[in-house]
């Protein structure tokens, strides 16, 4: 390595006289910010105006409720098995309907859920999907454990996500 023979570094571009006296450059900068002041704002005023995510958004996992009011879930327990955060608890039971199994108890602990979407990916029935719901605030730990009452969502409300899954999964 000939460290001593490296020619002195040349600047890519020396400042011209106009740049050295600052003032034209300052005026340039000022005019840029002034123009920006009159441009439309990006701010979304949250509680009044809510952000609606696209179908690819992974929000709170929910159970799909068919049009006749039954859940799609057959309580196979795959979601519970795959869940890396151990957030899902399923207990199966039998019925006389065409699908003979249903979840007697289906609980997702929203304090544990990491929104990875593995449950949705692994589900053979397309029964658990990620919704667009991102407003998850609890005042105590019990509230954070979502049972079937909170998890079941009608299928029309989840159509975006289901379409996305069918196209890209």
């Amino acid at each position: 390595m000939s460290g001593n023979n490296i020619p002195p570094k040349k600047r890519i571009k020396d400042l011209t006289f106009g740049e050295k006296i600052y003032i034209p450059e300052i005026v340039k900068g000022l005019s840029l910010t002034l123009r920006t002041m009159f441009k439309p704002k990006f701010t979304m005023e949250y509680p009044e105006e809510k952000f609606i995510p696209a179908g690819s958004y992974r929000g709170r996992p929910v159970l799909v409720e068919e049009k006749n009011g039954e859940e799609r879930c057959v309580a196979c327990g795959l979601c519970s098995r795959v869940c890396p955060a151990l957030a899902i608890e399923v207990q199966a039971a039998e019925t006389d309907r065409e699908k003979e199994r249903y979840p007697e108890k289906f609980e997702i602990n929203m304090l544990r859920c990491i929104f990875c979407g593995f449950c949705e990916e692994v589900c053979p029935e397309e029964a658990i999907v990620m919704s667009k719901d991102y407003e998850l605030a609890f005042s105590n730990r019990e509230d954070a454990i979502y049972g079937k009452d909170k998890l079941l969502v009608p299928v029309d409300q989840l159509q975006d996500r289901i379409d996305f899954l069918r196209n890209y999964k």
Partner: protein
Amino acid sequence: MEAIGNILWAIISFYNFLLIRIVIVLVMMLMTAAYLVYFERKISAWAQNRLGPNRVGWYGLLQSFADVFKLLFKEDIVPDNANKKIHALAPMIALFVAFTTYAVIPIGPGITIAGFDIPMVIADVNIGILYVLALTSVGVYAITFAGWSSGSKYSLLGGIRSSAQMISYEISMGFSIGGVILLSESLRPMAIVESQSGWMWNAFIQPIGFITFLVSAFAETNRLPFDLPEAEPELVGGYHTEYSSMKFAAFFLAEYANMLIASTLIVTLYLGGWQIPYIETLGLSSGLVLALQVAGFFVKVGVLLFFFIWVRWSIPRFRYDQLMNLGWKVMFPLSLFNIIWVAILIMIFKL
């Protein structure tokens, strides 16, 4: 009863209603400082495509009061290593300087109501400019004391930077004012304003002096291209790192009050004060002319205040050596040159 009334009247009318004028100016200053904070936040938001505070009150207009009340209720923390007396004294000096400087700034020409000549300035003294310069120098102590007494390295560095910066820029500030005084032949702010009748604004006659004064004013008020005393990325908060609650609020208020003073001073010295060029030729009634002139003063100050905030959100901070280079090697010679320029103008045109 009559005696008490007479005494009251004597107090109120003392020195052409001095007390009332002080109260009016003080209230105006506090309100302007409070709303400057609001506009600072709004303009910064606009410059970044945001909306800014808009929750407290109509369009967020009560935001600054919410901030003040929040600070009032906060705990006042004094570090163990602090020199407690000086730590408490520093914000008081800052506020004192910020509020007293305004005494000599004329808002408008004098008026006569019911036989009383009421000047629109608290103290029409003939050493006004000297007084302003003296007080702004005292302002250095506030920041230096704050930095030194906090017992924190960040505060100390901020304080040291600030003392060096303010002393260097005070020199070019003083020399810039020299040009103005050459023309007005008086240190009285009223006389300086009156000397700028018509379009004879000092900003047009001595543009170099105007620019050097403007830049020095930015440095004196520690506003952004020169806010090294409180450079956040390097010094946490600079001299006010160890301040909280109302002591911090005092520094905050003083900063904005200083900005207001710098703007009024620039208007008085360089932009014709309350003068509107050739307004007397329009043949308006004297009351209307007065109102327009006072309004003109406030508009000029408002534009400058906007400029202060606008610059803050446009121009990055200088490095410390660049700041000193600019102060001593550029601003100082330029302001000297400005004095020569004005002297030559006076020689040639007998201004």
